[in-house]
């Protein structure tokens, strides 16, 4: 009796909506090249109902639907670009884990490089400025003091 209850509970849990395993064998395409493209594309698409997962990794129902959709369109002959466009038409750029390069995202894509160049440039300027700074020449009084000190001490030559 307990065994029956256990199994029923488990079965209910496992078959409940939303508790699916990511990329299951029954989704996979027969053609390995197409399947590889499907996996690669799925890794680039965000699961919209998850917290930061791709549809390839996710257990969610919607992720499941979108994975199947991607495969259907691959079998129908769409290119990668066409499939991505299909989804961004419906869900916007948010569905892409790799943001498109457009004026709104120039800061994002070119920022790191720009910062690196700025930083390197700043350092170079700073170093050059420091080395070019001439030491302030001594005044007459300071010069006299210096000579007095050097003359007075009988310190051995330590060169």
């Amino acid at each position, binding site marked *: 009796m307990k065994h029956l209850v256990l199994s029923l509970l488990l079965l209910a849990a496992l078959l409940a909506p939303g508790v699916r395993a990511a990329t299951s064998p029954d989704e996979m395409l027969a053609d390995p090249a197409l399947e590889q493209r499907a996996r690669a594309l799925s890794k680039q698409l965000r699961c*919209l*109902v998850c917290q930061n997962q791709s549809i390839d990794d996710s257990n969610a129902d*919607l992720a499941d*639907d*979108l994975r199947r959709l991607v495969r259907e369109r691959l079998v129908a002959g769409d290119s990668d670009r066409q499939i991505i466009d299909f989804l*961004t*038409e*419906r*869900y*916007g750029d948010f569905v892409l884990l790799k943001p498109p390069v457009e004026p709104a995202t120039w800061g994002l894509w070119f920022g790191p490089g720009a910062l690196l160049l700025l930083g390197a440039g700043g350092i170079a300027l700073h170093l050059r400025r420091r080395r070019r700074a001439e030491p302030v020449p001594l005044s007459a009084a300071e010069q006299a003091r210096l000579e007095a000190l050097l003359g007075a001490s009988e310190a051995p030559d330590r060169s």
Partner: protein
Amino acid sequence: MRRLLYLIPVLVFAGVGIGLALGLTRDPSILPSALIGKAVPEFDLPPVEGLDRPGLSSADLKGQVVLVNVFASWCIPCRAEHPLLMRLAESGVPIYGINYKDKPGQIGAWLGELGDPFRRIGADQSGRIAIDWGVYGVPETFVIDAKGRIRQKFVGPLMPQDIDQTLLPMLAKLNG
């Protein structure tokens, strides 16, 4: 001049801080619709089995301003918003439904219990048509104008303030 360079960190922080403050006023999980202003996708959904309501197709969405509500009997927030839909329907707003991934038997009982505001209901058992609408969860509600264009989308259950502040004014404007 060089002293001004030392101000850069605090200025950058100020900018980020303002951005974060603005971010606090938003809900990060809501995805704005990519279809606003575009024509409704082409589709033709069969009626729900056993229900005395015609199905829904894109052709039905031209000619008047309507609401399209994506719902399911297994969706708990859908229950929460249902009385609001009933009230809108009673006040004369045409509401069509897309039944998302549901079992035919369940819907009849659900609508019987909560009331039926829908003039037409299309059964989208695979969820594929919903994807064409950019749906990513239930419930979602769309405002369609007379030319069959999507003008607004509400994600999640309709709230009274959504209706008063956004929906009703929009319907009034679209209806002339």
